[in-house]
């Protein structure tokens, strides 16, 4: 069973079966990492373009390694956001790469819907590597993969997302994926950082972190963007730490074996204390490893989709 779409735009658009297929496909790719030669010829002759309108070393490098381990050719393009407004249009840029026979365009953009615009206009497979406040599907998939690997299941688990839900594409992709696979998802944060109508996605909203933590199996801590303070979304970093920082004391309210996750990069001492980040329950570094396996699975499955 292949994926239905030529593109990966978000977990909203995948059904449960497709998500499971990607996770299952990632498994053998991860096993490959323990071998001395970590490369397979699967995508030989294919070209992947990493088109990043927003800097993100992590995601870009992860896609780069994934592509290379599948033997694809890779081009990295960094576009500064300032040139977006005045310069060449997104569609023209995409068409240029298509003319150069790009098979995949991995796009990171600060504006929601930018990957959808490309997908509509191009034949190449478009992979959303994060668009505005919309989705970050490969991150969502690697989080699902990590949870399933550690907990052996997803259905029935209680999973808490902490912090800036409003501006988090990671949260959005997590919510779609986790709820489709049967988990109970909770979000907690200041009301100004909780999106309007989020409950309609089937999640429970909390403002009290201790209550929110009760009985949870997984805690996914989101990065706080410090500039949100200037938009009056929270009064100060100090107050945020007081109310929402994940620290050892608070961790006691969760299940003892609760997984600690963070999409990175972390603001240590702000949304997460160092002792929690480095605790035995933390799987933050494994998330990074799993990211490569999941992205290989995505490239592999989309390459089977011929246009």
């Amino acid at each position, binding site marked *: 069973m292949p994926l239905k779409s030529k593109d990966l735009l978000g977990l909203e658009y995948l059904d449960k079966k497709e998500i499971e297929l990607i996770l299952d496909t990632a498994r053998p790719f991860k096993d490959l990492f323990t071998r001395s030669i970590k490369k397979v010829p699967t995508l030989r002759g294919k070209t992947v373009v990493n088109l990043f309108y927003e800097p993100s070393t992590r995601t870009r490098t992860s896609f780069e390694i994934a592509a290379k381990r599948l033997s694809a050719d890779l081009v990295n393009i960094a576009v500064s956001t300032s040139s*977006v*407004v005045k310069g060449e249009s*997104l569609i023209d840029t995409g068409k240029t790469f298509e003319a150069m026979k790009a098979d995949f365009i991995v796009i990171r953009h600060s*504006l*929601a*819907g930018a990957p959808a615009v490309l997908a509509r206009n191009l034949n190449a497979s478009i992979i959303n590597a994060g668009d505005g*406040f*919309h989705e970050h599907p490969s991150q969502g998939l690697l989080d699902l993969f990590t949870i399933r690997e550690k907990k052996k299941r997803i259905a029935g688990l209680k999973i808490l997302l902490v912090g800036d839900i409003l501006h988090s*594409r990671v949260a959005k992709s997590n919510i779609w994926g986790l709820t489709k696979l049967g988990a109970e998802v909770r979000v907690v944060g200041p009301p100004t950082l909780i*999106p309007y109508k989020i409950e309609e996605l089937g999640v429970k909203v909390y403002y009290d972190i201790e209550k929110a933590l009760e009985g949870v199996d997984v805690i996914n801590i989101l990065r706080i963007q410090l500039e949100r303070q200037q938009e009056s979304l929270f009064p100060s970093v100090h107050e945020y730490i007081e109310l929402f920082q994940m620290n050892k004391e608070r961790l006691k309210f969760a299940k003892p074996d609760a997984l600690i996750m963070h999409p990175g990069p972390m603001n240590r001492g702000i949304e997460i204390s160092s002792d929690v980040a480095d605790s035995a329950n933390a799987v933050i570094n494994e998330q990074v490893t799993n990211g490569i396996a999941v992205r290989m699975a995505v490239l592999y499955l989309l390459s089977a989709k011929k246009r």
Partner: protein
Amino acid sequence: MKLLIRGGLVVDPETKLNNISDILINNGRIEQVKNGIKADGAVEIDAKGKVVIPGLIDVHTHLREPGHEEEETIASGTRAAAHGGVTSVFCMPNTHPPLDNAPAVEFVLLKAQKEGIVNVFPIGCITKGSNGEELAEIGVLKKSGIIAISDDGNTVMNSQVMRRALEYTKMFDIPVISHCEDTALTKNGVMNEGYTSMVLGLRGIPTHSEDIIVSRDIMLAELSSGHLHIAHVSTKESVDLIRQAKKRKIKVTAETCPHYFSLTEEDVKKTNYDTNTKMKPPLRTREDVSAIIEGLKDGTIDCIATDHAPHTIEEKNKEYDLAPFGIIGLETLLSLVVTELVNKKVMTLSEAVSKMTINPARIFNLKDRGSLKKGNIADITIIDIKKNYVIRKEDFVSKSKNSPFVGRTLAGFVEKTIVGGEVVWPIKEETNR
């Protein structure tokens, strides 16, 4: 020259006409409306099987000239109007430079006279440069030919300035048209705030941003007893506020646009971020749409206007956040009204037509227009109400093609548009004018 429109079903809300009649036009005015007119030497138009209505009056059009002629000009915009059965357009003053001074207004009128094919009635600015601070020379503007004032595109956020505008205009008997948007609440927003914006990850514009200013301006209209006209109503709460205000005899009138009764925020998602669903105010929820329809039915909303806002393909073919707000509307106005309101039995054709003819004429004091009364100027539209047709980009005569209705099948095809007794649509030859 005499023109005889023969055998059409004449529907005129003002004179309550709704039967097969002939219309005789002499010297640009309506001379006779009755069955079996004999007129030797008159040019005849056969309207059998067609519906004949007063020419439509669009109280909210952006013609873009001067300043953005790549989007639309007075020449192209009036042709788009004629194509849509619109015989009079009220053009908004947010041009470059804006219509905040007499020479600018005179330029538009002169251009319209030379290059326009339908009537153009300019709207002047409320404030100088439309910056919301100091009143424009409204009296001078009135003398140069404006029929209302508006800072459309911007809200007069200073309540004292808005109060003065409503007070000052009482001596000219012209409405103050309010673009209701609390700009602090709409900042950075690109679509309606709600479930869909959350899922799409787009910044939201809450309905309250409209409701707050509607509410404030109604209070200011009460305070000043000036005439407030509310542009492009899009929310349930606004409809309620206007309904209550009318009950309290406050001098308030209102318009909505076809997209607010035919599309919802879900269309942004259905079209996968198509920027032709991006406008201000944004497309709202189904509940708002029902309230708008209710408001049209019970008379709370007086007019249906286009808010025709042309933007080039280059401007619109972008990421959702980067594209400008606005869609064109002149060429789909009547068909959307017929398809969404008349054919769905929300209101009769006569009731629907009144929102685009006699109501605008009354509200904006247009003499001799808006109805097929004897003696009136012969602005007339002939439509084939049963004909279904597909909206195609290639058929638009507007310079811009930014319509979310492309590809839709609509009813109510404009056969002929007559302005001052002359057929302006279909356009015969460009050299004829």
